[in-house]
């Protein structure tokens, strides 16, 4: 098979995946019944950026960085508030993790703002966040749900944010090709993955994602974060039927889906983040 043919397959696969995951996203949003106010999102990402013509346009790179900055604003504020809330008192491992992650997410905000300004773009303003998602959660125990429940929600939201961050940066990498922002974006991407692994492990899960399972204790509203992770075909190769030189331990689909993280589109990332953006704020 020629490289061109291989790439054709990639492209159509990607487009199929994208439209189906968008459908699922909107389904999840409406079942969650809150804040599908996508029109309020301060940037419009084109739905198909995989063609070579748009790939190198500066706008797609700036859009990618603005999306990244919005996600980093979300994460940075979340971890600062988490540490201030007292909910982590008595949970030493989680507190240590949140302190380290908070440091990184705040640095990412500053780094991306400086990068955008350096590129002559105006960084998007920080949205007003609502980490209760309209009252569905009480992660900082502000509503008095109790520390134990608040702690569980705090970790569940961290997992959703980190796993979303990994997928969102991955989805934007192609938009940053040929720009000086690609390498630092990749360097942030793997930091988010380190964070995700530790948060998941604190929650008693594997550090890696199996099929599209969000994992025990994750609210159904976070399912959009995991849809698409069940993909078993990479580079046109169905990895569940490949012959391996060493025997795989356990279930092949489990192993194959764990071994590759999947990207999400900018639209999907925005839709997930918008669950926590106060559209009236």
């Amino acid at each position, binding site marked *: 098979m020629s490289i061109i043919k291989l790439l054709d397959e990639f492209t159509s696969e990607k487009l199929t995946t994208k439209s189906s995951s968008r459908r699922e996203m909107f389904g999840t949003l409406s079942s969650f019944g809150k804040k599908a106010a996508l029109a309020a999102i301060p940037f419009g990402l084109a739905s198909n950026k995989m063609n070579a013509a748009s790939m190198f346009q500066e706008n797609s790179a700036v859009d990618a960085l603005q999306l990244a900055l919005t996600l980093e604003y979300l994460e940075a504020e979340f971890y600062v508030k988490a540490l201030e809330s007292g909910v982590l008192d008595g949970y030493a491992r989680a507190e240590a993790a949140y302190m380290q992650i908070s440091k990184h997410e705040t640095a990412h905000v500053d780094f991306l703002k400086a990068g955008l300004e350096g590129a002559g773009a105006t960084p998007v303003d920080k949205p007003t966040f609502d980490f209760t998602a309209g009252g569905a959660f009480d992660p900082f125990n502000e509503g008095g749900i109790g520390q134990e429940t608040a702690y569980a929600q705090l970790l569940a939201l961290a997992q959703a944010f980190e796993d979303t961050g990994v997928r969102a940066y991955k989805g934007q990498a192609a938009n940053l090709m040929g720009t000086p922002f690609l390498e630092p974006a990749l360097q942030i991407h793997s930091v988010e993955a380190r964070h995700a692994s530790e948060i998941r492990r604190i929650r008693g899960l594997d*550090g890696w994602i199996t099929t599209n399972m969000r994992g025990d204790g994750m609210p159904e509203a976070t399912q959009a974060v995991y849809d698409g992770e069940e993909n078993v075909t990479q580079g046109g190769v169905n990895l569940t039927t490949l012959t391996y030189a060493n025997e*795989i331990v356990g279930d092949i689909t489990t192993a194959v889906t764990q071994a590759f993280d999947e990207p999400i589109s900018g639209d999907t990332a925005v839709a997930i983040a918008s669950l926590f953006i106060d559209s009236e704020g």
Partner: protein
Amino acid sequence: MKKPLVKVDVVETSSNNSKRSSRRKFIKLGGLGLAGSSFLLYACSEDDMFNPGGEMNQPMPQPEPEPGEEVFDLGSGDVGILNYAYALEQLEAAFYTQVRAGAYYAGAPDNEKEIFDDLYNHEVIHRDFFKAAITTAAGEENTLPDLEFDVSAIDFDSRDSVLQYAQVLEDTGVGAYNGAGDRIADATYLTLAGKIVSVEARHASAIRSLIDPESGYFAGDDVIDENGLDLAYDPSEVFEAAGGFIVTDFTANNLPEPMTGS
């Protein structure tokens, strides 16, 4: 893109040339020395040459190797980068195969066994995926052959040794993929590399949290800089770090340069 079929020259070496450079890198990466490594790396950072056996057999660099002694070159363009990643995945898969055959694993608690089962699975899958993908895209003659490794420096009976080397390998893998991204020409391959590097980062984090739980070590200040950025290595740095394990001779003389010079 077609290249003549080359024979891979597997060379047993016992040199101690370039030892300092290799060891320095390991110390920087993971606080580990590589004393006792039975073969060594000659890595020239100017042209990314990686050719340990060649140095032993031929003290002078030889631009035109004798027929039959030609070593495999990773290649140019995206195929070169894919072969580069394939070399690292071969090393990781070989490492975890050995871990699972060792005494530490045999006596490890279930949660640690499960982690090493998963990491073994993932790296074997990555390795054999690259073999299939490169062979399909560029032909068997342009696909890196199966490499031979010498991991005798690692004490597979020791939890500390296994975890420390696992950390070095995973962190190096993360840095290698991050540093290779800007050398990839095709968006599809860039995304594929992205799908793998985040899994390597998840591994690195898990291994690090086994080493030092209840701390920020999973994304420690030793690997994440003040801007919150992870490692990014040039191929020459990776060969310095990982080359001490690789017995099979190959060169990396034609890997693409970064597109933006970053």
